[in-house]
């Protein structure tokens, strides 16, 4: 009898504890359901940017880079342009009516961002420490190496960096580019012009003998003149990370661009089609000797968005 009473008492106490704990957990769940996300949302970030409320988005692109950024009959085409369109659509500016394309030369990219002429630059913009003191970068969305392109007639004469040092050969590159600095490090005398296209024209006119730039830019010109040029694989050393330039005063915009680049990267990782892959196959893909994949963007913020609950598989 005593044992029965004890068991009964233990059961009563257990029931009391269970009821109390269940009510506590239910109350905690109720509070949890009313709390806001600890992470900022994409829309919150968007409201912090300087572009919020703007009717159009001003994007700086190249108009003279075949396969990367080019203007043809009033239409912008190229890998950079497609990446820019994807980012713009994610930011709320879908379609070319909502985008104000601003042609920027290589050397004008930083002043254009600093001066507010553009909201962001997507123009084969290498992410370097020096530049990061002046503008912010989101990315990379592409990793390239520096190469040299020579006319077909010189493909057996110019094969190494040593050959480029030969004073007989006039090497050309665009001003303000990372290639200019890299060639200087290798003591290569270089002729600096405004755009890589000017170098290509100069070679065709016999003024220069070689042009050095990012492999993607050179692949673009090779696609224009496949019989006239050859790309020489030169071990310049460093690879270059290509990113999207944004004003240094707008970290929220940088975060959003990095977030959307990462979204595309994650889609590609799962073996799904991604905006990056689509842009790549439409433009650069067929012209590069070694196929590329989207590199993982750096410093991607954790944000919540409306499609976070969507099935992943």
């Amino acid at each position, binding site marked *: 009898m005593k044992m029965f009473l004890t068991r009964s*008492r233990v*059961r*009563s*106490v*257990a*029931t*009391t*504890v*269970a*009821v109390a*704990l*269940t*009510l506590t*957990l*239910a*109350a*905690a*769940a*109720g509070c*949890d*359901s*009313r*709390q*806001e*996300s*600890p*992470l900022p*949302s*994409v*829309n919150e970030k*968007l*409201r912090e940017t300087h572009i*919020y*409320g703007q009717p159009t988005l001003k994007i700086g692109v190249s108009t003279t880079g075949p396969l990367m950024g080019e203007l043809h009959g009033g239409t912008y085409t190229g890998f950079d342009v497609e990446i820019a369109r994807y980012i713009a*659509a*994610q*930011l*709320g*500016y*879908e*379609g070319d*009516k*909502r985008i104000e394309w601003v042609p920027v030369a290589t050397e004008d990219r930083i002043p254009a961002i600093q001066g507010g002429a553009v909201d962001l630059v997507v123009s084969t913009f290498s992410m370097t420490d020096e530049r990061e003191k002046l503008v912010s970068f989101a990315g990379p969305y592409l990793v390239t190496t520096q190469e040299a392109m020579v006319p077909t007639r010189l493909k057996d004469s110019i094969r190494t960096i040593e050959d480029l040092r030969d004073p007989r050969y006039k090497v050309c590159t665009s001003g303000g580019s990372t290639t200019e600095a890299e060639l200087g490090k290798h003591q290569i005398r270089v002729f600096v012009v405004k755009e890589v296209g000017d170098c290509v024209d100069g070679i065709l006119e016999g003024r220069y003998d070689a042009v050095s730039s990012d492999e993607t830019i050179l692949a673009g010109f090779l696609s224009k003149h496949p019989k006239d040029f050859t790309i020489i694989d030169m071990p310049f050393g460093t690879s270059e990370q290509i990113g999207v330039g944004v004003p240094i005063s707008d970290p929220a915009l940088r975060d959003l661009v990095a977030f959307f680049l990462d979204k595309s990267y994650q889609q590609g990782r799962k073996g799904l089609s991604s905006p990056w892959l689509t842009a790549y196959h439409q433009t650069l893909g067929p012209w590069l000797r070694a196929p590329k994949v989207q590199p993982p963007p750096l410093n991607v913020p*954790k944000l*919540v*968005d*409306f*499609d*976070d*609950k*969507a*099935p*992943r*598989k």
Partner: protein
Amino acid sequence: MTAPTVAGGSDVGADPSTPRPARGRDPDERRARASQSFWTVVVAVPAIFSVLRLGVEAGGELQTTLLLVANVGPVNLLAGFLTTAARLLSTGLVAVFALGAVLGVSVDRLPGYRRPLFARWADITPAWFVLASFLIALVTWPLLYLPLLLPALAAAFQLRPDRLHDVAAARVLIVAALFGGYLFFLAPTLLDAWQQRELLVLALFVVPPVLALTIAGPLPGAVIRPLASVTEAAVLAMLVWASLPVISTPVLPLTVTTVEATPGTTEDVRGHVVVVDDVNMVLLQERGGVRYVPIDQVKAQVLCPSEEELPRHRLRVHDFHVEDSLLEGLGRRVRPANRIDAACRSTG
């Protein structure tokens, strides 16, 4: 669900020999009156809530409220209310039935003790209604809170482990196997939750099944009265607290309408479409005010999510987001979510 004793409302603790029921009403009459009151509440609460929602949606403006009343059909309003309030309603009912059953069995063994309100409600409610409430909760509650249904179910139907097997060792084995299977099923989610330091999520997944084992049974006599009073007040407060977002949840879907008032110039209007006729589209703007847009100026329209739909956790149970209910999760698999339309972003 019926209780072994007749629902009595009077406190006869002072004289246990006094026959129940008191105050001259027979149990059938009380039951009929209670049932009548219950169904009145079931019909009246959604109706009142719906009207309140229209007022809130209209921004407190009388004319806008009248515009909405004139254009939002009662069936649509009720369906909209049930869609957004099913979770709240089932939560209230589950809480009442679970607490009512525990309090009921606790009072049963104390003759002359006044039956708490929830116990009386549980007594007069048919078992099918209790079961239906749990089923609605099962499909409408977020997955994260579903484990709480286990102790609630065990409490409401007074399910004890004794029913699993006569032999104690076998019972332990069955319970251990069930709990092991449950943990194995949730292992990836629990690991993620641990890595993200989501301790509440861990507790919500792991603790309730354990509590379900011991929650059935009577409470000590000293606990009944304070628990009854506190939980009645708490459930009422919870319902009021949780009903505020339900009242402020929009009745009409949120859209962004692209309007071309002058050639070449478009404007995105974010708001709710009240009605469309041959001449105008009437938009209740999100920032307030009603706008009549000539129908030939409407160039595009997209459906947008609202910020209340943003998730708070980054956890999934076998690819079902923990904040989705079973219904929502299954729905996402039938119609996978499209990406957010750009127009929804640009107008904030």
